[in-house]
């Protein structure tokens, strides 16, 4: 605790650890004592230039991907190669200003994930009946389960090992929600094959509301990368001696497993029984 406290009567500094009731200099009682820091607004953090550069990269790439997917889907074949590449470059820029070892590890994990997405572009080149077909399954497992889990682990490392403001932490939670969503969808596809969805009616016109919600969420993700990249976590300087918490047993990892595990049986119940209940 580095905050300094001053006597309201004479203005002399008071040590924080002592439990004194009277000022040692003027003798006035300190009953109505209020710390000086309570009146000062939070010092606003001014982001470094590389943070703004990386944030601009993230925001423009994510919004550009969203616009291209809706307006000109044919271009995604080429652009899909550049999205993970530009994101990886952005995280590489952020490596400039890491604060501790945990943030470094988190950024390395995210960069490796983005480079793995580059590999996935070559996935359709593997024939289904070749002896390399097991690579398809391996890629699917990595993409559907390992990448969301490790991504949440990396983001939780950033959230738990840095002093962030409340709103910045809330934006980081939105990013973790995105990875939970990825895990949710891949697990849902595991339980329900695509045919069942169509027979249930998860199609037009319901798909439009779903796409609307999805678009809103993706705009939120772009905004949260903008906020998180410009936060204190990537503003330096690097401190080697900070003790970091690398444990994967935290509430973020727990909710990543629990949320799909509760939601999917619930949706299974609705799909199987609610139709009969509603049509009573």
């Amino acid at each position, binding site marked *: 605790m580095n905050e300094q406290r001053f006597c309201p009567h004479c203005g002399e500094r008071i040590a924080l650890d002592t439990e004194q009731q009277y000022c040692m200099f003027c003798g006035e009682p300190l009953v109505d004592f209020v710390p000086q820091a309570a009146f000062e607004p939070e010092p606003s953090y001014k982001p470094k230039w590389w943070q703004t550069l990386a944030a601009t990269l993230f925001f423009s790439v994510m919004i550009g991907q969203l616009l291209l997917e809706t307006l000109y889907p044919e271009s995604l074949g080429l652009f899909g190669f550049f999205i993970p590449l530009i994101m990886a470059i952005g995280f590489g820029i952020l490596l400039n200003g890491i604060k501790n070892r945990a943030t470094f590890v988190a950024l390395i994990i995210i960069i490796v994930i983005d480079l793995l997405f580059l590999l996935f572009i070559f996935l359709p080149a593997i024939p289904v009946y070749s002896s390399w077909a097991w690579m398809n399954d391996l890629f699917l497992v990595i993409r559907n389960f390992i990448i969301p889990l490790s991504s949440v682990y990396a983001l939780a490392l950033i959230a738990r090992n840095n002093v962030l403001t*409340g*709103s910045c*932490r*809330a*934006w980081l*939670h*939105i990013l*973790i*929600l995105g990875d*939970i*969503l990825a895990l*949710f969808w891949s697990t849902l596809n595991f339980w329900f094959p695509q045919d069942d969805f169509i027979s*249930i*009616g*998860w199609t*037009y*016109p*319901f798909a439009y*509301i*779903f796409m*609307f*919600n999805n678009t*809103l969420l993706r705009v*939120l993700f772009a905004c949260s990368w903008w906020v998180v990249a410009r936060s204190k976590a990537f503003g330096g300087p690097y401190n080697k001696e900070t003790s970091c918490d690398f444990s994967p047993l935290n*509430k*973020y990892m727990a*909710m990543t497993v629990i*949320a799909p595990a*509760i*939601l999917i049986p*619930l*949706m299974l119940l*609705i*799909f199987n029984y*609610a*139709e009969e209940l*509603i049509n009573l």
Partner: protein
Amino acid sequence: MDIQDKITFFYTIEEKLWDKKVEANKYFATLCILCVALLGAWHTAGSFLNSALDWNTEISMLNALTFIVYLWGLNIAESVFSCKDIKTATLRSLLIFASFVAGYIAGVILGVIVIIVVCIILFILGCYFVLGMLSGSLKPKGKWKTDDGDIINGEKEWGSDIVHGDDGQDYKIKDPWGM
């Protein structure tokens, strides 16, 4: 209370209820509630358009229910992340579910109101149109304005712009509807 507090109304409410126990995102919960309200509005409007005009706009109750559960699950995860203790997280997720139900009902009612208002406006416009036609056709005898600007007495032929004048001549009139 300025306009931004009204836009992010759920954040304002939860700030009043649990001041420093919750550090949630400003926009996420409110956006989810608005999405559910949109779903409710689509539910009524879609089934109305399906039954009236045979459009493929109907969504089943099953879809609506699964969508609400899906959004609620996301918000439960967000409450667990953002609340300081488990009691606040439980209360916040329950409040969000109640807001979802309220938003859905509000959306359904708003959908009904919008349909009724659109029907009333269409009815009034139709009345004006029909009355205009009738006033042009049911009053054939009277004063008419010709193309040249003269005013003559005569009887208009139904469905055309020709007036048989009282002096025996036929005139062409400017405004066949007589308005």
